[in-house]
């Protein structure tokens, strides 16, 4: 597409009120050139189709399927409706469900209370332009870049009971991945390791954007480093703080890959996402039952998404 129509459009754009008056089909609307209208239509339609096709349809289909006992075999017409049976089974007779919910919550708490603050702290340290800060930055960010398969493998080398680094060095016999009382913490360390780097980078970018004159002013007023951070820098970084919070919540809800790599989300490492996959994907094909689990997860996610959107929109109104 040439630049020409866009330039024309720029010239042709009337004051905003022109398009909003009624009888818009009239002469004034044509001020938008044909190309403009095609572009605008496409810009609305394509994302709309993508969102509908890739997000809303699957989501609605999941909710609908959760009321059936479909096993992935046979035409749609043969799908049998079983009502809330899947939900009843999930809650009452499916032993991994309760641990999964607990583990998801634990995951959220661990990332929120431990990993995120450490990431923020490291970002503040790196922002001080220490010697070799580039090196630290790279080292800390590396886990985010590595593929999960590789991360799973690295930690397997560290945690293996008989051949692992940890037991090898300290001579212990702890079954890091197998003991259900221990493995969730071992995995949380691995997850936190990655999360810290991610948060650090996000926060560092934000810190670089803080106006240095604010700090100078604080220093001139005799404020200490700590109180400058908490009373000046931290409040100024409110948008970044919200993003960090949201990222933390999202990361803990969609936590999946690490436990899947380790033991497919069993034996102490149950997560709702892993249970969905166990049931839906693969030979098991308990699609109805798995969809019920997915719907529960969707409902939980919606709570957080709603809170986030509500906050953001209220912010915009101000």
């Amino acid at each position, binding site marked *: 597409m040439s630049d020409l129509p866009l330039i024309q459009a720029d010239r042709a754009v009337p004051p905003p009120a022109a398009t909003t008056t009624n009888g818009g089909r009239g002469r004034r609307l044509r001020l938008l050139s044909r190309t403009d209208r095609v572009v605008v239509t496409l810009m609305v339609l394509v994302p709309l189709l993508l969102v509908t096709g890739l997000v809303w349809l699957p*989501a609605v*289909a999941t909710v609908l399927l959760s009321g059936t006992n479909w096993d992935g*075999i046979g035409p749609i017409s043969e799908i049998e409706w079983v009502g809330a049976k899947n939900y009843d089974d999930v809650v009452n007779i499916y032993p991994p469900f309760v641990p999964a919910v607990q583990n998801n919550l634990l995951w959220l708490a661990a990332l929120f209370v431990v990993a995120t603050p450490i990431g923020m702290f490291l970002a503040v340290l790196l922002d001080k332009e220490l010697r070799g800060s580039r090196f630290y930055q790279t080292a800390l960010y590396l886990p985010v870049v590595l593929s999960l398969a590789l991360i799973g493998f690295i930690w397997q080398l560290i945690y293996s009971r008989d051949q692992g680094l940890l037991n090898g060095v300290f001579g212990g016999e702890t079954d890091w991945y197998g003991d259900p009382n221990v*493995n969730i913490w071992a995995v949380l360390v691995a997850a936190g390791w990655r999360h810290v780097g991610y948060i650090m980078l996000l926060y560092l970018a934000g810190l670089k954007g803080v106006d240095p004159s604010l700090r100078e002013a604080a220093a001139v007023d005799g404020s200490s480093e700590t109180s400058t951070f908490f009373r000046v820098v931290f409040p100024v970084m409110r948008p970044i703080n919200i993003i960090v919070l949201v990222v933390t919540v999202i990361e803990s809800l969609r936590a*999946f*890959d690490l436990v899947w790599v380790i*033991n497919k989300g069993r034996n102490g490492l149950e997560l709702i996402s892993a249970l969905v996959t166990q049931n839906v994907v693969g030979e098991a*094909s*308990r*699609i109805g039952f798995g969809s019920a689990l997915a719907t529960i997860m969707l409902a939980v996610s919606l709570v957080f998404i709603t809170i986030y959107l509500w906050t953001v929109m209220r912010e915009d109104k101000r």
Partner: protein
Amino acid sequence: MSRPRSQAEYLARLVPPSVAGLNRRSLLAGASGAGALLGTGLLAGCGDSDSGSGGDAKNVSLGSNQSDPKPKDVVAKVMDGFKTSSGVTVDINTVDHNTFQENINNYLQGKPDDVFTWFAGYRMRFFAAKGLAGDLSDVWGKLDGYSDAFKKASTGDDGKQYFVPASYYPWAVFYRKSVWQQRGYEVPKTLDDLNTLGAQMKKDGLNPIAFADKDGWPAMGTFDILNLRINGYQFHIDLMAGKEAWTSDKVKKVFDTWAGLLPLHQPDSLGRTWQEAAQSLQQKKSGMYLLGLFVGQQFSGADLEDLDFFTFPEVDSTIGAKALDAPIDGYMMARKPKSKDAAQKLLTYLGSKEAADITVKNDPSTLVANSGADTGAYTALQKKAAELVGSATEIAQFLDRDTRPDFASTVMIPALQQFIKDPKDISGLLTSVENQKKSIFTS
């Protein structure tokens, strides 16, 4: 869920679907379910259109799950043999072993290859009953060299055959001859012998029984063999088919017996892979290991020659010790092959002595199902394994092949791991299994 055949495959399997190209978000939203819904509906609809039965087709397609270099090579050689003998070319479509298994539902409902690799067992019968596999009774009329046990394992619920066995491997208790000679251990004949032997090994500083269940399936082998020894083959199969109650005293007895043996098992099994357990046997830290013949992959050279096995000892003298797990791999035909004639010709060849001979010559790690094959090239271990299976009165296929795959993977794996974690609450565990079984089997 299959057993990884090599370290490489095991590692490849560590790659989660999210990394292997599946969009994670759509996965979590359950979109894969919806995708499967749309996909299979459409495919099932148009699958009917190509029901031609060409008379003398010049090629036939084969869907193969033999994705490792060695077995893949063997398949290619067997197909070459078929081309030489019949003049029909085989197009081999090889798919990664695990992917093949996970996609089998969609695969069979879409446009499957004329002939495809699969396993004997419940799942085979299930596909046959759903009309997703072709009747092979005619082919079986032309086959010989198969024992009744193999024929039984190839038969669907309607009494017709749907499967041609190619190879198999038995599950048994493996040990190192040198260790046993040095310490003067003797092969146990009964459960009491096994307990005594285990106690002696403990005294000698060995783990009596190597054990690993991180991946969930190896413990199924222990359950199977105990159930076969305590309650017999028929009860085991009925239990797997959902016809018997898990809360019955018979099943309780299996878990009670297992709980009694657990102290002899290598501790902390839930964090260990079978490869690591096999290595503990190889390194002479463990005395014995109940696993499939593929345990030999962790041994090489002189160590492999030092490997020997015995079948799990008798528990109840009225039941005996003649049944065992010996999963059979083989071939099935699509419900509507492009050329039924060519597909049947291929299957007849795959079940023949010639095809078995090619396999024996090229692959030392499996046993061929056709007893007419020239097994002179077998290693001592292979010969003994073939004898063991040959003398078996009944052959089970392993828990995850003998029952519904959803029940095996979403109920039995967590349940067995729970039992290993906490062997005390057996009745609570079995009540939970029974409740889930009722829900799954009646749906």
